[in-house]
């Protein structure tokens, strides 16, 4: 496989950029949800592996009308995760990615507690570098297009068997998605933008009352961010909106659930230990920006270690 070399400016900085923007954003407590923006190789690398540990608390609920109701101190819901992401170059411009999340959810309300842990929704992606930078250009960003497939390995509220449905670690639908991502660097500064759309596949759910045909709608997520890279450090901020149309149920009962919407604000501090190894600390908050509807709102802390192998 003959591979080209990229402009040197991307060699170190892209590693930190990647940690910044492509993070999973978990959605509603009742219904599950996650962005479908995959891990991408944006630098001059052939392989990268990322391990993430996160801990978050659901601090509020956004109603279907968009009102935010903060939870009482007697109502505690925590979400922890360990996630292993990878991306490998298939050819000069094609790459394959994957994501394996392990999740633990717990909730305690007025002294009644329940917890469950297990595999979340796994995903795989194929990305293509649509607009490479053969030479550095301050005007032309690097652009990637991607397609991903998320499988409902984490179960969902429909499949749950516990109180508070804490064993629901996913959306419960096979979800294909497509998207585009672009990044640009100017000296010590960088900017990123990504947009993804998806439409999950319908499924049937049956119980003693009958068969329910569940038809998910359209969904989209995006991210826009910027960062400053003094030396081996990177400080970044991003905003990540996510929207999911409600599930249409037909069969034993007919109904259309309300759509969900969240805006996640994130701040990140990354450090490049060596040219192929970095760590990041990320804080994300879904209450800062408002605009949420029909969703549980989280505050989370992520720690990430990423190793890459150059071409």
């Amino acid at each position, binding site marked *: 496989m003959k591979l080209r070399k990229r402009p040197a400016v991307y060699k170190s900085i892209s590693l930190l950029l990647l940690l910044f923007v492509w993070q999973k954003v978990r959605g509603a407590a009742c219904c599950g949800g996650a962005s479908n923006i995959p891990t991408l190789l944006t630098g001059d690398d052939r392989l990268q592996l990322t391990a993430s540990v996160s801990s978050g608390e659901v601090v509020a609920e956004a109603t279907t009308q968009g009102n935010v109701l903060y939870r009482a101190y007697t109502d505690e819901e925590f979400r922890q995760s360990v996630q292993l992401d990878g991306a490998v170059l298939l050819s000069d411009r094609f790459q394959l990615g994957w994501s394996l999340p392990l999740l633990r959810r717990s909730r305690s309300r007025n002294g009644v507690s329940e917890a469950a842990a297990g595999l979340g929704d796994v995903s795989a992606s194929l990305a293509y570098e649509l607009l490479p930078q053969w030479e550095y250009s301050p005007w032309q960003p690097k652009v990637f297009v991607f397609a991903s497939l998320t499988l409902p390995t984490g179960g969902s509220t429909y499949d749950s068997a516990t109180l508070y449905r804490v064993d629901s670690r996913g959306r419960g639908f096979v979800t294909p998605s497509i998207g585009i991502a672009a990044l640009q660097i100017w000296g010590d500064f960088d900017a990123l933008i990504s947009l993804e759309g998806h439409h999950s596949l319908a499924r049937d759910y049956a119980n003693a*009352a*009958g068969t329910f045909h569940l038809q998910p709608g359209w969904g989209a997520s995006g991210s826009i961010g910027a960062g400053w890279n003094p030396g081996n450090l990177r400080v970044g901020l991003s905003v990540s909106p996510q929207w999911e149309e409600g599930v249409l149920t037909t069969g034993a009962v007919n109904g259309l659930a309300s759509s969900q919407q969240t805006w996640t604000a994130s701040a990140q501090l990354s450090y490049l230990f060596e040219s192929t190894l970095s760590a990041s600390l990320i804080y994300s908050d879904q209450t800062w920006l408002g605009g949420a509807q029909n969703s549980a709102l989280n505050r989370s802390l992520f720690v990430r270690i990423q190793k890459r192998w150059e071409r």
Partner: protein
Amino acid sequence: MKKLLTVMALVFLVAGCGKKVGETPQPGTSACPFGFSNRGFCADIQWEIGPTSRERSAFSVKFWNAKDSNKVPTRVDGVVTAFIRMTCCGTVADGAVSEKAPGEYEVTGLRFMPGEWDVFVQIKQGDEVEKASRRLQVD
């Protein structure tokens, strides 16, 4: 950057306007809380546990002839089932139904989340299904 953020905000706000919840419960009356007009039955439920999210909730349901003002329990022809649906998200779950006496049933094992739910009681006979529901708020 500001323009880009504005465009993204508009896209997501417009897209996120969302549709209203599709099905609303049939309006019951105090005389006939759950009405089964095709079969000429009324029903009412009595919560034995809950409704609450902190444990599995249970209720008893009693059927009577809609013309009977004394509400004497009456056996219904068909299979009685019950399920719940969360209005915000469409999550559904069923309960285990057992017949306690002619026209009287017990529904157990209902797992609620905090929020607004519709409780459905239905009678199924062959392919014919008639159901009635009431909306309630669960803590």
